């Protein structure tokens, strides 16, 4: 791990805090789901925290972001309130979507979160549209679209890159390549190793980052966003990472080689890597790091209490917000 730019200690600790918050949110939500307390289905982003936090740290609250079914981490990284997130997972009225969206549809207008999405690649054109809007309104906002390696096989991905290219839109397409599309390993669903090569077909720039190395992701995103704000057109970023759990909580992931998850967990744990970096460089000591984990554990359990104590939505809520 390498940091070539000046980052204040406070910022470092903030990044690590967010990564811990994501990990703990996912771990605890998973546990509650398996106990039958959380309905629907859940997709955990454990193992991909560096991508979420590294990218979102490089954009502002005014910038737009859209994500996928595996979106909890991105929402937390963009500043999401874990109380309202957890309440949404519980289907409670205090949740971001008043219990009508659930895990796969969390959105937050004030934070520029255009929404998680149940449709693979569904968010990519929407983000592109937000970038078009920013450009037409003459703001310097950028839009970030998170999606997976699997999503890059959808027409929506290709059409979005093409239109963003010809319109020169300030959109950062962030492919979190965790090497699986549900049960299908990357080598079986696309004949390429780097999704980033697909940028060439649309004559746009691309950048590949180690999605387990937050410093790599963060610095590369800063550079990319600077380009976007200059009006130089869209960029495809690929963060190589790994999802530690199955595709959804409860999926035993029998389609993966047995040692593969262990290998990533042992050698490429984004949180362990970053904590190690902070200690080696004497930016923080183990006490400080432990305090962060403790604080975030408490924060998530408080969120669980918040969700548990919140009300179910009134039945009339079901009938509201239908356009027609």
């Amino acid at each position, binding site marked *: 791990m390498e940091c070539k730019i000046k980052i204040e200690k406070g910022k470092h600790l903030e990044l690590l805090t967010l990564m811990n918050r994501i990990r703990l949110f996912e771990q605890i939500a998973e546990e509650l789901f398996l106990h039958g307390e959380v*309905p*629907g289905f859940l997709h955990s982003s454990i193992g991909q925290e560096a991508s979420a936090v590294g990218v979102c740290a490089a954009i502002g609250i005014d910038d737009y972001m859209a994500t996928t079914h595996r979106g909890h981490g991105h929402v937390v990284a963009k500043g999401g309130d874990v109380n309202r997130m957890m309440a949404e997972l519980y289907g409670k009225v205090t949740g971001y979507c008043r219990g*009508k*969206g659930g895990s796969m549809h969390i959105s937050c207008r004030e934070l520029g979160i255009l929404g998680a999405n149940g*449709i693979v690649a569904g968010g990519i054109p929407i983000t592109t549209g937000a970038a078009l809007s920013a450009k037409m309104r003459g703001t310097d906002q950028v839009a970030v679209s998170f999606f997976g390696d699997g999503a890059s096989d959808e*027409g929506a991905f290709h059409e979005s890159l093409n239109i963003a290219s010809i319109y020169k839109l300030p959109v950062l397409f962030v492919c979190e390549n965790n090497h699986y599309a549900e049960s*299908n390993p990357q080598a079986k*669903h696309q004949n390429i190793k780097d999704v980033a090569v697909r940028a060439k077909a649309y004559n746009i720039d691309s950048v590949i980052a180690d999605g387990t190395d937050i410093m790599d992701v963060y610095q590369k995103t800063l550079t990319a966003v600077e380009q976007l704000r200059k009006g130089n057109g869209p960029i495809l970023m690929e963060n190589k990472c790994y999802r530690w759990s199955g595709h959804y909580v409860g999926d035993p992931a029998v*389609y993966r080689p047995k040692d593969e998850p262990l290998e990533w967990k042992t050698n490429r744990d984004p949180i362990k890597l970053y904590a190690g970096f902070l200690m080696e460089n004497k930016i923080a000591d183990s006490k400080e790091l432990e305090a962060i984990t403790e604080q975030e554990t408490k924060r998530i359990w408080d969120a669980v209490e918040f969700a548990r104590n919140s009300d179910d939505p009134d039945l009339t809520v079901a009938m509201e917000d239908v356009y027609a």
Partner: protein
Amino acid sequence: MPRSMTYRDALREALREELIRDERIFLLGEDIEDPFGGTYKVTQGLTEEFGHDRVRNTPISEIAITGVALGAAMTGMRPVAELMYVDFAGCAMDQIMNQIAKMRYMSGGQVEAPLVIRTQQGTGRSSAAQHAQSLEAMFAHIPGLKVAMPVTPYDAKGMLKAAIRDPDPVIFLEHKLLYNTTGEVPEEDYVVPLGVADVKRVGTDVTIVATSRMVLHALDAAEILAKDGISVEVVDPRSIVPLDQETIFDSLRKTHRLMVVHEAVERNGWGAELCALVMDHCFDELDAPVKRIASKNTPVPFAPVLENFVVPSVEEIVAGVKDLLV
């Protein structure tokens, strides 16, 4: 000898027997290969038996899944494509609506498109707005598509075989809450033809026409109503295109009261079509206006309390039948 088996196993048995029967048949879809065996595990074990050539994983590319199935069907193969959720048909709608449905017609009868699109729909698992719709009316509205909606394991197996053997495209709508339900399935080869309704319960006072999982709700309601001395006949059309109108009308001629129940939203739902058909053909038989029980006109909400609220319940059906009789 009939055996008891799940809806899931019955579907798998149909696929397996058809794969053995006809070499032109192959399966394609997302995550259908072993060891995963499909999100709802319908295709589990089939790759091991038939190989990756005939049980093919696809990328997440619904346009290609449906379009490739069509191209293969037009040129001598008999594909069975799987869309993991009916909601993803949204991504594939050009191929389904503009290509698959119209190919024989547009070509003046030159080409056939013997393909099946298997998918599953429905609520009940808090899957929310993009994973729980019931879209049969959308398909049924497009001339050229057959639409099957089996509820029992027996029907599921027999109708899937009929769909695969059919020379035309069939949209085969399973229901996500039915996969673990069980029922009797014969050991020997059989087919349940599309367009043949099934009277799932005989009665004399009211006819309920219900589809897919709502057949089970209607049967539960009929059981409750029987205790009050009300005799309900439950008719399952099994496929809404083609539709066995006569079985429905025959029932109506006996009961003179009709209710239609479906899980899709009420507005422009299939129930409206049935009402219109009854007006056209059997108006004089009606002793009361036809009653529709269907989901409320909203996207499917996530919270279990809300999901339950928008979807028809057994109690609603019971109350509706009583209304029909006053």
